[in-house]
């Protein structure tokens, strides 16, 4: 009944092919502009050590954002990723003494299963993903609080996760490498299999996808599964960095992760976007988080600047030719 009448977006008509390609590089351009601005503000900022530190810092955020990107591409949202990552840090810290190296895959698996449970609740009970995962957020936080005894769990012997804290070639943090590999892997799998079609179809038009026989429910559950697994992996990175797990350790990464996805230019309404975009978005967000205070922006102005820059960055990166109505 309310079929969107094909209002040709004016932008689309005017846009030349070259400009079209440019929007694909916008996240990178935004990133470069930010680095340039920070360097102007503090010439000492652009050093190899500083970039190494930033990339190490960004790793967990990249992984979290990459996983949640799949859910966003399917048209949903996963608000539980940070709480799940927090819980995973606790589980990892608790299990490391007994399971050693095995603890890492087990925790990722458990996180993936929790993702599946939320996905299934969303799909089967037909509750909006926003609500399911908001509920999931509080439930997982409560569980984390209880199993950790409301305190941090120290990791005394961190040999099993230490490898993540090494540097490749002395410069590139291992955790960053792993994050990039995860992003590349997800991107590759999407590219070479029908999954990309399925996910975009689900995100753009779920009913059409379903009637075309696309396994919409499975695709969505799968997206939540990957999102959960990524939260688990992010937790491993955090533990390797913190030498402990804590029931609220990753909680504050939720909004930055969503911001990373959107700043990358992925449409929050689903369908259009990619994990590569989220990688660039996560770097932008990380630079904003650490860069602004380090170059000496006072706290209050830092928040105002953060707000402004993030809005401008999204204005730059979003490819509006693919989404006619912005909500």
């Amino acid at each position, binding site marked *: 009944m309310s079929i969107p009448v094909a209002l040709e977006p004016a932008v689309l008509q005017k846009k030349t092919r070259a400009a079209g390609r440019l929007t694909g590089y916008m996240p990178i351009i935004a990133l470069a502009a930010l680095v340039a601005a920070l360097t102007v503000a503090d010439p000492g900022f652009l050093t190899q050590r500083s970039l190494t530190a930033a990339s190490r810092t960004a790793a967990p955020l990249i992984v979290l954002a990459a996983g949640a990107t799949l859910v966003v591409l399917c048209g949903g949202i996963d608000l539980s990723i940070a709480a799940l990552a927090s819980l995973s840090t606790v589980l990892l810290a608790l299990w490391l003494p007994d399971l050693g190296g095995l603890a890492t895959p087990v925790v990722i698996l458990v996180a993936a299963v929790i993702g599946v449970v939320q996905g299934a609740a969303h799909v089967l009970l037909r509750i909006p993903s926003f609500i399911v995962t908001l509920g999931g957020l509080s439930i997982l936080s409560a569980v984390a609080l209880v199993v950790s005894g409301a305190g*941090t769990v120290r990791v005394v012997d961190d040999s099993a996760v230490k490898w993540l804290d090494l540097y490749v070639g002395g410069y590139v943090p291992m955790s960053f490498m792993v994050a990039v590999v995860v992003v590349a892997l997800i991107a590759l799998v999407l590219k070479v299999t029908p999954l990309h079609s399925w996910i975009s179809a689900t995100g753009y038009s779920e009913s059409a996808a379903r009637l075309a026989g696309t396994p919409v429910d499975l695709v969505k559950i799968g997206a939540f599964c990957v999102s959960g697994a990524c939260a688990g992996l992010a937790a491993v990175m955090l533990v390797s960095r913190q*030498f*402990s797990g*804590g029931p609220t350790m990753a909680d*504050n990464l939720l909004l930055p992760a969503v911001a990373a996805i959107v700043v990358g230019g992925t449409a929050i309404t689903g369908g259009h976007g990619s994990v590569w975009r989220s990688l660039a978005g996560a770097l932008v967000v*990380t630079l904003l988080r*650490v860069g602004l205070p*380090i170059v000496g922006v006072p706290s209050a102005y830092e928040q105002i600047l953060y707000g402004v820059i993030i809005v401008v960055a999204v204005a730059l990166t979003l490819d509006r030719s693919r989404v006619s109505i912005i909500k």
Partner: protein
Amino acid sequence: AGGNDAAAEGACQPSDVRLVGQVRNESNPYEASWLAGGDAYAKSVGLTQERLTYDGDSTKQQEQISQLLAGDTKCLVMNVLPNGDSDTAPIVKGADQAGAYLVTQWNKPADLNPADHATWISHITYNGVESGQQIGDALATAIGGTGGIIALQGILDTAAAKDRFAGLQASLKKNTGVQLLDQQAANFSRAEALTVTKTLLTKHGNHVKGIWAANDDMALGALEALQQQGLAGKVAVVGIDAVPDAVKAVQGGTMTATVSSDGAWQGGIGLAIGYCVATGKLAVKDIAAANRAFFAEQFLITKDNAADFVEPKTNPADFECANVFNRVAGPLT
């Protein structure tokens, strides 16, 4: 352990020293006074303090620290409030590797000790068990030794919250007439304390004779709740931190007691210790083991002595290299 022994020697020109103070945010009075104290100290030695705030976000704190340590660390002095116990270890490790001078406050795991590190000079905290017990006792006295009380806990997974509550429990053991009716977490927050208190007041009605709050912010929230329920002055309230509003309330009699933790001093002293070591005026190896991790002096503030605490008194002399450990009340237990 070990670390960079050369750095521990301390051979920096005073003008080369870089002073950094890091707290959660600038939007609560306690931490704002910490940063102000740091500024004042830096000014006294002709430097400026770089202020860092991390919104109570552990990951953001780590991110800032690693970015900071990726810069010039030769004469870097950091006075840090770790967000939680778990945040201390990575900060210490980073500082070790970079050879930056570090003083931490409030939070650290028990098995991690400055004495095992070269540039982690000191850890300063207040004895939460003691303060929790002191205000518990004060509350018991205020309600005449018998009656019900409710407790407002801080953020459950912080050492401060747990120690203080342990102190309350110890106090309850002593004051057998006092009965703990209920305990809820209000996360060190004034707003949450307001709602929780209202709910508990309706739940327990006039059985509630006193309110024990793990910090002053919550105590102030509880006071508002009492006022709104028309119970102002009829229920005793205690807190910890000695924020100005609480001290005034104690002075005015609406609050029974609080415990001094001196934010401005904390902001200055961490920088001062680091500065003294960095410039060679103090050698790490000369610092007594008991001063590497210590409880700072704290005072129970009641109506009697409140007037003395209305203005936080930080004395410039406290920050001279010979006096930096003057407020040590005892080694960390």
